Every structure is written in C-alpha cells, then in structure tokens.
C-alpha cells in the first residue's frame, strides 16, 4: 500500500529526513516512535503533502502511484488520511459543513454519488458513535474552542467519515488523559479492517497498549534505526531513548 524508499526531505535548507525506508501493507498497524526532533512529524507532513518541505531524494509510492505527483487533496481523495497533532481551528466553518464538502469531493473522486443532506446526516450519526462525539460540537466552528480531547476525537471522527485506506496518526495521544485516549484508541480499532492500514506516530508506548502494532520502528536523526514488534515499544518505554542514541552514535 505504501512504499517509502530512501526518502530524504528538508525544510528551509535543513535536512530532516535522511533516507527513510518503510513498507506498509493492507491490514497492518505500524508504530513509529522516536525522541523529539527525530523527524516523526516531518515524515507525516511530507506524506500528506505540506508544501513547506522539500523532498530531496527517494520515492514514495501510495497504492502503486508516485505520491509526489499528487496535491494534498488528491492524496486525501485517494485514501490517505493524516490525523493532525495540532488540529487547526477554523472560525466560521462548521465541522458539519466542512465534512460534507470533504466527503462529497472524496466520493466524487472515487466515482460515488454525492450524499444529500439527509444521507449525510444519517452517515454522520452512525460514525459519531465510534468516537462518542456530540452533535452539538459538530455544529460549532471547526475545532474552535474545543478541548484537546475534543479536537483529537474530531480527527478520528473525520477519519471515520472519510474512510481512508491509510491513516497516519501524528501524536494523537499527546495531551490526552487516559479516558480520552481509550475513546480515541477504541475508535481507531473499530475502523481497522483487512483492507486499510494505520501508522501510529508516538513518543510514548501508552497508546500502543490500546492500538496494538504489528511493527514498531524507531526513528532517530532522520532514519529508521531499529524495527521490531510491539516488544520493542515496551523496551523503549522501559529504557528510554538514550540507548538508541548511544548505539547509533557508536555505529
């Protein structure tokens, strides 16, 4: 589904990603862990198509196509979804109206008929259950004045509505208390299927207690320096990142 080969990227002349290799297949959950500044968020930004990053080398294939040929909206319509670490507030645009536009543009791209207001509302009500989000919240301006937990739940709710093939959760756990974390993780698990895949980017192992990864990768200094199974996440939780840094410095 996703093939990242020797990906190099920089921002304002500063090299951040120094050759990433990663392959994600349908049905898999990958966790990408790493200390602050290792390039985790840059990776998700480059995959989603943020224009301020420059791709300096390597390739990324998503569903067999070169991802860099597509705009951010085309990637989203193809089935790439980024749950933002810091969801943006947009005053004056209600979540409901925004999502209706998004869902219909995505459906159009996939050759599906647009949803009318009634169908849309029906779908919305079904998906709201998944993350236990209140309809009143969705009538308000997008993320404006939402609590941290509400914003993250809204991200997963949008994910449910857009039915992506590959979801990248960028530090979705940061700033969440354990109850909110469970709701969010539960939502992610409900949306899992053999046809879609998830990349969980996180600093801590905590989220991985609820969203069980098939693979764990450690990103350090712009490269994946270690890959393993979920046991690697426990080891990182136990020992921190210093031993990785040390190992890598010696290497």
């Amino acid at each position, binding site marked *: 589904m996703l093939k990242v080969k020797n990906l190099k990227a920089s921002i304002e002349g500063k090299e951040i990603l120094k050759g990433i290799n990663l392959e994600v297949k349908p049905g898999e959950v990958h966790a990408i862990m790493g200390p602050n500044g290792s390039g985790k968020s840059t990776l998700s930004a480059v995959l989603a198509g943020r224009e301020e990053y420059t791709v300096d080398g390597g390739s990324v294939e998503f569903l067999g196509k070169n991802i860099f040929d597509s705009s951010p*909206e085309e990637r*989203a*319509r193809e089935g790439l979804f980024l749950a933002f670490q810091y*969801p*943006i507030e*947009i005053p004056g*645009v209600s979540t409901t109206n925004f*999502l209706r536009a998004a869902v219909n*543009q*995505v459906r159009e791209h996939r050759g599906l008929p647009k949803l009318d207001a009634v169908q849309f509302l029906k779908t919305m009500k079904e998906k709201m259950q998944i993350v236990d989000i209140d309809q009143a919240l969705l009538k308000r301006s997008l993320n404006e004045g939402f609590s941290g937990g509400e914003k993250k739940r809204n991200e997963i709710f949008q994910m449910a509505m857009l039915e992506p093939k590959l979801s990248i959760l960028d530090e979705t756990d940061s700033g969440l208390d354990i109850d909110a974390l469970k709701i969010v993780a539960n939502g992610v698990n409900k949306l899992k299927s053999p046809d879609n895949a998830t990349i969980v980017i996180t600093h801590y192992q905590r989220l991985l207690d609820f969203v069980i990864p098939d693979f764990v990768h450690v990103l350090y200094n712009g490269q994946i320096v270690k890959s393993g199974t979920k046991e690697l996440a426990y080891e990182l939780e136990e020992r921190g990142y210093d031993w990785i840094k040390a190992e890598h410095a010696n290497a």
Partner: protein
Amino acid sequence: MEMSDLLQRLILQSGDTSFSAARGTATSLIEEKGLPSRKNEEYKYTNISKILERNFGEFAGNIESATDLKSLIPTLSENQLVFVNGVYTEDLSNYQLPVGITIDKLEENSSAIASGVDKNSDEFLLLNTSNLSTGVVIKIAKSTVIESPLVLIHITDSSKNQAVAHPRVVIKAAQHTQATIAELFIGNACPPNWRGDSLSFTNAVTEISCAADSVVSYVKIGNESPNQLHVGNTRVEVAEKSVFNAVTVNFGGKMVRNNLYIALNGSHSEANLDGLYVTDNKEHVDNHTVVDHKVPNCNSNELYKGIMNGSSKGIFNGKIFVRQDAQVTNAFQSNKNILLSDNATINTKPQLEIWADDVKCSHGCTTGKLDKEQLFYLRARGIGEHSAKLMLLDAYANEVIEKINDENLRTYVQQILRNKIDE
C-alpha cells in the same frame, strides 16, 4: 470666487424652488471650498475629484434612462422603493407600507433635512445639497415595530449616457420604534466603449435620526458596476437608550467612498458598525467612519473586514471621539484585511481622540493572506484548493454578513460575495 467648470456641470439646474435656501448656502460653500484634492487629509488616498475632472468634462446632465430597468431589481422585501438616478420612481417600486410608516416626498417636507451645512461639512455632502431637488422622508411613528425591512434600491443608470445621481433620503425613527432599513446601490452600466472609459457618479446622502428607546438597523449594500464612482454620506443621530446598528458592505467600483458618521447624543445608547469590502482588479473602496461619543455611558463596537484581490485598493479610517462629558464610555474598533494578491493594498488608520478619563477604548488592525495552515487542513481532507479558499473567505466575510438581521438580505449579500470571489 469663480465656480470651476466641473462644479458648474455637477450642480444641475432645477426649476424646483423648495430648497432654494439650502441649495444657495451649499452652493456658495462648495464654490468656496472646491472639491477635495489629494492635499485634503480626508481624501488623501481617494482623489475622486481628479477622476471626476477627467471624465465629466463634457457632462451635460442626465439624458435618458433605459426602459428595461425592472429586470435589474432583486426582490428583497415586501417593501421596496426604487430610485433611478436619484429620483424616486413609483412604477418600479412595490410596497404595502405597514401601519406606522409614512413616506413623503422631501420636496413637500423640505424642513426634514437634518444636516445643516457649514464650512466644515464634507464637500460631497455640500455637493448633494446644492443639487437638492427631490428625495424621500421616511417616518416611523412612535412605538412602531416593523418586521419586514424597508429596502431602498438606487439604480444609477448610465446605459445610454454618463449619469450623475444625488439621492437624498431622510429617515426619522420616533421613540420606542424598531425597524430595519436597507439601501442597495446597483448600476446599469454604460455600454462598452462609450468614450472608452465611461463612468457614472452616485453621490448619496442619507440622514437617520433615532429617537429615544429605538432600535434601528441600517444596511448599505454597494454593488454598482466596476466603472462607477460612488460617494455616500450617511449621518446618524442617536438619542438616549437607543441602539443603532449599521452594516456596510461594498463589492467594489472604480472609486467608492463611504462616510459613516454616528453621533451618540443621548446616554445609554449604543452603536454597532460592521463593514465588509471586497475588491478586485483596479477597484478602490474607502470607508471612513466616525463615532462621536458626546455623552456618558454609551457603547460602540466596530468591525470592518476587507478582501482585496488584483491590484485593488482598500482604505479604512475609523475615528472615535470621546468628548469630555462622555465618561464611562466603551468603544472598540477592529479592522481586518486579507490580501489575495501581492499587488493589492490596504491603508488602514484608526484614530482615537479621547478627552474623557473613565473610558475603555481599544482598536486594532490586521492584514495578511489566507491562513496557510487552515488551507492545508481543508486540503488534507480532500477539499480542492479553490473550494477551500472559497470556504475560508466565506467564513471570514460571514462574521460581518451575519450581523445583517434579515435573511433575504443576508442571502443576497452572500450570493454577490460568492460571485465576486469565485471569478
């Protein structure tokens, strides 16, 4: 002093003598002052006299108007009065006035003109007064509540020839009334290539007085042709315990200048001023506002927002006066601008003059581009760049549009906005 050729052509002769005294005074004042040049601080950025000079060299009065103006008129309310080139036109109007409203011809009611003129008067107010020959007086009787807004539609018709209009409207809301009054300015454009760059000129004056305990909402929508000139003077007097709401929206023109003057004359009164200007190409829109706090315990809130594209220009100048007696005043002002192109400009100037000491005042202005983070967020959800921009601009403008307290008017403005930004 010899009257300039331009003034001579812009001051139309009329047989009606109802206003001869007012006209005489205004004419001698404007002869003395002349139209404002660029050296005039108030018109520094808006040198409309120069364009008038250049384009009205051979203007010899309104010649004829088109016969099919009806198709231009939107249906916005049950009560619509239509003016063509400043003259009230019964045939095009349509109203069943609710009990409590009367509409009289100004020429039969010439004492209703509130704005006495003096040497400090705005030059275009003087020019309007020196042209007085007709107009309307709208009176709202004591304790009247009007549900459906009264809409005045001004058509400047230059389809056959250059046109000059000096509409004059007087609105008097008596005690304990509640009403919404809207003025819509539309143009019937010159045929293309008439003298290469044909223009029309609307010079409107609207005087509003709000008696005690009244709630008056006023909406001014400017949607003339891109080659029209427009100056509007709206002068409002607000008595105690009254609320006056103004929403001024403008969608461009060759050169547009709105002067909105609000005097809070009675304590515990409130003025809310919201504005939106959306310009493109070489359009030029200038909003000057004055809120004059004369007495204690009054509030004013002002929010003006602009969207400028192409090489268009926006100007905002907001004056707030807090007189010595006006203790316990709250006055807030904000001007926000989005520039959609590198060649668009905005000149913004807040001007607070405060003589009282127990006062809460604030002002601020921002100018920027569309928020990149917001744009990316929408695109990352599959929304195309163009529709994402429209969505953000709609939301931005809606903060002003939603202050219009009538749904038909709101929808109408939203449609114009959409057409303008979706070019």
